[in-house]
């Protein structure tokens, strides 16, 4: 079942399998704050061929534009997982997850809730201080 969904998602997001210079895709990437946002976007952009990566803190959606001739979703996901963020299909290794900032531990319910109630993004990093 899951596989079918994956295949479908991939089918839907990449308009065609032609070598598209500006392919668009969406991924769900787990994270909690604007520090995560920077980490996720940086990891994506550091993948050769990714032109634009915008991660939404609220929806966890990562909107990607990349050059299919140079990279693919799998490679991009690997880069994201490598810096410690889970995607829907790939889980980060414990070592990678351990490398994220203590207040970005998105697998920790307490921290997630902390970010949820603290909707005071006053200093722009999504943290209450």
């Amino acid at each position, binding site marked *: 079942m899951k596989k079918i969904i994956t295949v479908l998602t991939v089918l839907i997001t990449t308009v065609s399998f032609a070598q598209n210079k500006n392919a668009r895709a969406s991924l769900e990437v787990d994270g909690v704050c604007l520090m995560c946002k*920077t980490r996720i976007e940086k990891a994506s952009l550091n993948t050769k061929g990714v*032109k634009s990566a915008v991660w939404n803190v609220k929806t966890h959606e990562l909107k990607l*534009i990349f050059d299919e001739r140079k990279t693919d979703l799998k490679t991009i996901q690997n880069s994201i997982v490598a810096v410690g963020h889970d995607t829907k299909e790939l889980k980060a290794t414990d070592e990678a997850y351990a490398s994220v900032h203590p207040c970005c531990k998105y697998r920790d319910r307490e921290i997630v809730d902390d970010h949820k109630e603290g*909707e005071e993004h006053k*200093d*722009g990093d999504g943290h209450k201080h």
Partner: protein
Amino acid sequence: MKHILYILLMLPMMLLSQDRINGVIMEANEKNDPIVLPGTNVYWLNTSVGVVTDIDGKFSLPYKAEYTQLVISYVGYKTDTITVTEPKMVRHWLQPTDNLDAVTINSRKQATAKSYLQAANVFTVSSDELLKAACCNLSESFETNPSIDVNFADAVTGTRQIKMLGLNSPYILIATENIPSIRGASQAFGLSFIPGTWVESIQITKGAGSVVNGYESIAGQINAELVKPATDDKLFVNLYGASSERLELNTHINTKVSDKWHTGLYLHGNTHNKEHDVNNDGFLDMPKYNQINIMNRWQYTNAEKGFVSFINLKFLNDEKQTGQLGFNPDTDKLTTRVWGSEIDTRRYEVSAKLGYVNPEIPYQSLGVQTAFSSHKQDSYFGLNQYDITHNSLYANAIYNSIISDSRHKIKTGVSYTYDHYDEFVNTADYERTENSVGAFFEYNYDNLDKLNLTAGIRVDTHNLLGTFVTPRFHVRYTPWEKSALRASFGRGKRSANIFAENQQLFSTSRAIRITSSSPLGRQGGAIYGLNPEIAWNYGVSYLQGFNLFGRKADITLDFYKTDFKNQVVVDYENPQEVSFYNLEGDSYANSFQAELNYNVFEHFDLRMAYKYYDVKTDYNSGKLSKPLVPTHRLFANASYETRKQDKGQQWKFDATYNWLGEQRFSSTETNPVQYQLPDKTPTLATLNAQITKVFSPKFEVYLGGENITNVRQSNPILGADDPFGSNFDTTFVYGPIFGSMYYAGLRFKI
């Protein structure tokens, strides 16, 4: 074997079949098309029990009595949590996040936001900040901002000039919606021609700024974003009345014309017809005036195709009358019976913008802006006549894109300007046409972490200024958490409109002298026989956020230096004349500012600043500091608001304190003793305060006082006893003339 496996697999299903919850998840849409959402996460809140919906949007979950909250989430849709009390069929529609017009975040954004991220030293003044003072027009909207100094109203025209880095407004590029607007003929009064309620937000850039908007900025850039028909209130009414009997009315009406077109009509009227003479010098403390200001905006938005467009039409008519008490223009104009002055301005503006953002590739966009304005001022000041007509055309096309990835952004484009000036000064006619064509390129690198830099360059060919290159550079580096270290440099060039920018000289008995050829035998320039002004601006700035007693605070230190390569020196050092000449030697403006923002306790914010200015020019009479610029200034602003009640009721309190150190008077030592002034002004301090009572999001009233401590400059006009004599001068104003003024107003919106 296989069968056993199946049975095993089926077992839990059978066992739990009694206590399961089934459902289907669909997308909520306007047409009510049944679009199911496969792959939606459905789980019980605070448990690890969850599934993903199948290809038909269906799901099935075990149910227990202790599970009550079911969370349904899907990327791109609003996450919903529904209460489930019994195992039943759930049919749920998810809202796409695109349709979420109203996301309510209950955090309090700072009214003035400093950026920790941008390369340029920019801060944004939001509409909240603009409401902290009466803010009837743009010149008054900087009252609560420490980086901009608002001068006291001048003795004759009552207008306020602003300064930045110790330099007055001609050195600041002031734009409305990125179209340079307050320049040329509108330099003197232009800020008072933009009503405060029209302003949505203001971006202030210290230092050179971007090359995109032109080559003219030297000290900084100010951009005012105006309210937009699609987002502004359907109806907004603002009434304002002051104890000086100044009345203002602002009305905004915005309607949706079709699903792509919105239009707004903005009306502003202000009037003041009472004669005040608090200091008994026989002159009005402030002019009598009537202003009508109308703007009609059309906004076109086509999100699917990625087009957005604005078309603006503006009309302004402003009439001022001032001078001695009892001045009657019909009988006394241009006579020596009574000294009086009238300034009538009419201005038409048409501007259009078209922006295209590629819906497929959001980082590619193209924008085209055009603006035409016609500005006509007819005026006389005592026996001095000054008329100016300025027609201006501006066009700018800008393309945004990236190189390789979105960390490398580029902006490039071309611009065209045309200005025609026709001036009449007493008996002389000055007429000139300026036009320029330029191309610009700006590269921005943001490594999403510690470094962000912007390097811009433009090349312009101008019929009077020649062909020249304008480089500008900004960099921001974050050495550690919550800090920003910035540096910038840039060049600016402009032609000085000596009369339009210095209209106060007409309200004096000074002779006007233009020294067109310099002692070194250089040829006189093309603008009034003078050369264009050229300056380099360098700056460093350091911002650090920290916590003080568990509350947020930040401190900014910045130092800017403006170094004039050429300047049109305005020399008041001989009290009998004002002379204009090209700079020989040095002219610089150094400014240092330390600013502290502190959130003392919840809803109480404090902002304090100390400013040091060292502005010196080599005049013919020697190196002197610029007259009427205080070396030291202190600024403090406190704002407190109570917690919002259920219906949005709230009290807001604001107070702004300004202290100005000594300022130098230009020399009066050759005057007769009774017309001599000391070398320096006294120090002075003023206090403004405002209380706002919000009754609901629709209605609020405010009450405020300016200059509450009633500080006054006792004799602002030199030679007021003999206005047609040789020592009459109204330019020595360093403080308030009128004393304290109280005002009240209301804001109503639907």
